[in-house]
């Protein structure tokens, strides 16, 4: 009788996993088709809106770059220099010192010759932690730089302070430790110039990994694949996520997440929705969903778009510890956001977002780590109970593994075909090998981090952003022979 019950559970789980896996694979294949179409379309469109045309124009929207900085003393001077050297006719840069306890502010004051200016009457449409002082440079060449010194309130709060102070149509939220491509703003503003029947509320672009590359004067001088396996696998993961995932969503106007490290937003809409939510660690996804909800509620046609080009480079976690912390935080952010907006679930009022996009995120983004974890536990239990047909299991595992390899290989193919970042045979082979090792080495770590994050949310374990230890770009890696 007991064996029958286990067998019954075994059957139910088996068919559930099969069904879930089939849906996921079907969605991935659909994503490949969509993203390929989207990348091609973007390439064709780009021919008719070249950055050289925009750089000389005078009527283009002005942009403010907002970069929160918390204890970034090691890299802040270099990074600000990089952010000040972008190609765009009209842009301001706001560095928000979010209560750093190191010498971030002193370094900025010293290097950029900053002086405080009267901020008695600065308006703050979005409430933030206390702003202590606002600084501007005495030097003409840094006139577009503003530094806001405020009490610590977290990244979202710092971004909100920057949005309050910005006086431009568009704001680009980034991290002070990101390296932005010189022509990134010119490319990012394109969708805002081209659209006329739908309002662009947010625009994102692909983010690349820069570990072990050579950065000089805030510019990527030589892009290299990371030496270590963990960040190298993340290169493949980012290529797949941005090229297959986000581009596919962009094609059907289903983008809900514009990465917090690099996102361009319409400032008026940001103020209308009260900026970033300071109570979640998944502030970028939460903002994306809230912006979409707002636009649905006020019934203004809108779009959130993604560009396939890699316009921003960041350092990925180098060690397993830091990677787990990062994925734990992302998982908590996802959990919090899904919970905050649970009213969207199959809600027809929000049209496609309520009926498809949000349920997708619920089932396949939030749900996937849980399903994988349950699958792993089931494997152990059913092995003990002797219910596993190992012959079939190994064949099934091989099929799923090959499918995963195919998805990664196609992503790398699309990347190699359209972009020239990793163009040598050696680099492509390394990327492919990293992709094929991913399910064995990297993926279990991800699931562990994600499940840890969910555990913390379910059992109310308090946890914040965690310390993301970075090497920084200043120490140039040794030249390879």
């Amino acid at each position, binding site marked *: 009788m007991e064996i029958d019950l286990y067998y019954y559970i075994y059957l139910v789980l088996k068919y559930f996993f099969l069904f879930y896996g089939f849906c996921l694979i079907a969605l991935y294949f659909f994503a490949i088709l969509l993203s390929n179409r989207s990348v091609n379309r973007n390439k064709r469109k780009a021919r008719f809106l070249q950055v050289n045309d925009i750089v000389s124009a005078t*009527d283009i929207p002005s942009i403010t770059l907002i970069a929160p900085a918390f204890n970034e003393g090691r890299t802040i001077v270099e990074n600000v220099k990089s952010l000040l050297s972008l190609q765009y006719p009209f842009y301001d840069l706001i560095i928000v010192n979010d209560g750093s306890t190191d010498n971030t502010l002193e370094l900025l004051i010293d290097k950029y010759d900053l002086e405080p200016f009267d901020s008695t009457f600065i308006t703050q449409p979005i409430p933030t932690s206390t702003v202590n002082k606002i600084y501007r440079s005495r030097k003409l060449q840094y006139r577009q730089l503003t530094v806001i010194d405020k009490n610590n309130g977290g990244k979202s709060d710092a971004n909100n302070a920057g949005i309050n102070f910005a006086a431009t149509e568009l704001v680009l939220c980034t991290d002070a430790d990101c390296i932005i491509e010189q022509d990134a703003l010119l490319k990012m503003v394109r969708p*805002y110039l081209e659209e*006329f029947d739908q309002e662009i509320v947010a625009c994102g672009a692909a983010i690349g990994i820069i570990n072990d590359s050579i950065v000089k004067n805030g510019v990527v001088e030589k892009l290299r694949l990371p030496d270590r396996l963990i960040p190298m696998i993340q290169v493949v993961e980012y290529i797949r996520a941005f090229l297959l995932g986000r581009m596919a969503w962009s094609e059907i106007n289903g983008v809900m997440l514009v990465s917090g490290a690099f996102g361009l937003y319409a400032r008026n809409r940001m103020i209308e929705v009260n900026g970033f939510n300071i109570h979640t660690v998944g502030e970028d996804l939460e903002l994306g969903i809230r912006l979409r909800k707002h636009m649905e509620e006020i019934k203004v046609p809108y779009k959130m778009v993604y560009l396939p080009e890699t316009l921003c480079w960041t350092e990925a976690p180098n060690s397993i510890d830091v990677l787990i912390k990062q994925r734990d935080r992302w998982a908590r952010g996802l959990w919090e956001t899904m919970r905050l907006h649970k009213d969207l679930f199959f809600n027809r009022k929000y049209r496609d977002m309520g009926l498809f996009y949000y349920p997708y995120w619920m089932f396949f983004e939030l749900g996937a780590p849980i399903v994988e974890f349950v699958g792993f536990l089931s494997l152990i239990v059913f092995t003990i109970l002797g219910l596993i047909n190992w012959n079939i299991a190994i064949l099934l595992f*091989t099929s799923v593994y*090959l499918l995963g390899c195919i998805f990664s290989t196609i992503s790398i193919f699309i990347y190699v075909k359209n972009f020239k970042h990793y163009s040598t045979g050696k680099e492509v082979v390394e990327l492919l090998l990293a992709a094929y090792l991913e399910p064995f080495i990297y993926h279990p770590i991800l699931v562990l981090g994600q499940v840890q994050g969910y555990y913390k949310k379910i059992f109310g374990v308090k946890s914040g952003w965690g310390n993301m230890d970075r090497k920084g770009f200043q120490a140039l890696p040794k030249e390879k022979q």
Partner: protein
Amino acid sequence: MEAEILKLLIKFLLLVLLITFGSIAYTMLYRKWRTRRLKLIENSFANICSLYLYPKPNEKPNLIEIQRELKAVGIVPSKPRNVQYLIDLMIRTQRSILGVNYIKLKTLFTQIPPYGASASKLNNKKWYIKARGIREIYEMDQSQYTRELIRLRNNKNIYVRREAQIGIVIFLGWKSLRFLPYLKRQMTLWQQIKIVEKLNDLYPVPDLKHLRRAYNSDRPYANELIMRIIRKFHLTEDVAYIIQFIDNPKFETREAAIYCISSFLLSDEQLVEIKEKFKNINNTEQQLLLLKYIQRISSEIDLSFYKDLLYNGNDIIKLSTADILWNNGFKEEVQDYYYHQYTQNADSESISV
């Protein structure tokens, strides 16, 4: 049975994986080969141009020889990608050369292949080829195709019609304002910017006759375009056109009006008009922009205007007004206001108690 199906599936997936590998390898090899081929075309073309522009003494450029040379590097109708690359090279060269050499090159390009390649693209069904053809026509200054471009100005594809409109501006200059304000379809910000920039680059002396005729258009995109032209050419005498849109009900039109007006200094009467319209704007951000502009161009502080805002505006406007008054020597007025607020609050609190 299940095992057999799975084995078959694995074989199939392995095949797909192999095909994908092959595609990557092919792409990389092809790119390498193609780069070499393009380099060859580029070198031949550079050589042809330099010999044509600066021939050796007592040697006339031989067109037959040039045509042979181009054919040898793959410029033949059966290789359209090579032909396209040559056209791109021609455009790039023409863009970077001025004066007599520009005319000479233009003559050369009409005498060597490809012949009529850009014009033939106008009949292509694919939008990106059609739009590319239009771009090549205007980049290479082939004004004989203006009529064809005029026909495409309302094309259903945004890129085709945009390129056609830019082409019309390049070839007709200010006369193009006979068409542009009366288009059937909406014009994006980029189209407007590009038109204004082209007018400024190629026809720097404004032709007010054509511009003022366009004032009759009631299409919002046309209003925005005209405002941008007035701003770009700094047509102070036509600033009234912009002022009328300051409190337009349409957000984008208002936005363009506020942006454009901020390049001008106004007369006292115009300033009064702006202040009147200020109250009709229902967007605080736009009001703030306008308020900063009013303060910037005013020779003296209009105390009654600012006090009205200080006592009757919304919180953000009040704060900005206080900022302006405080920094222009009217600290007492600001203090009075806040004292007044404080006593009012105190009174209301005592009543509620």
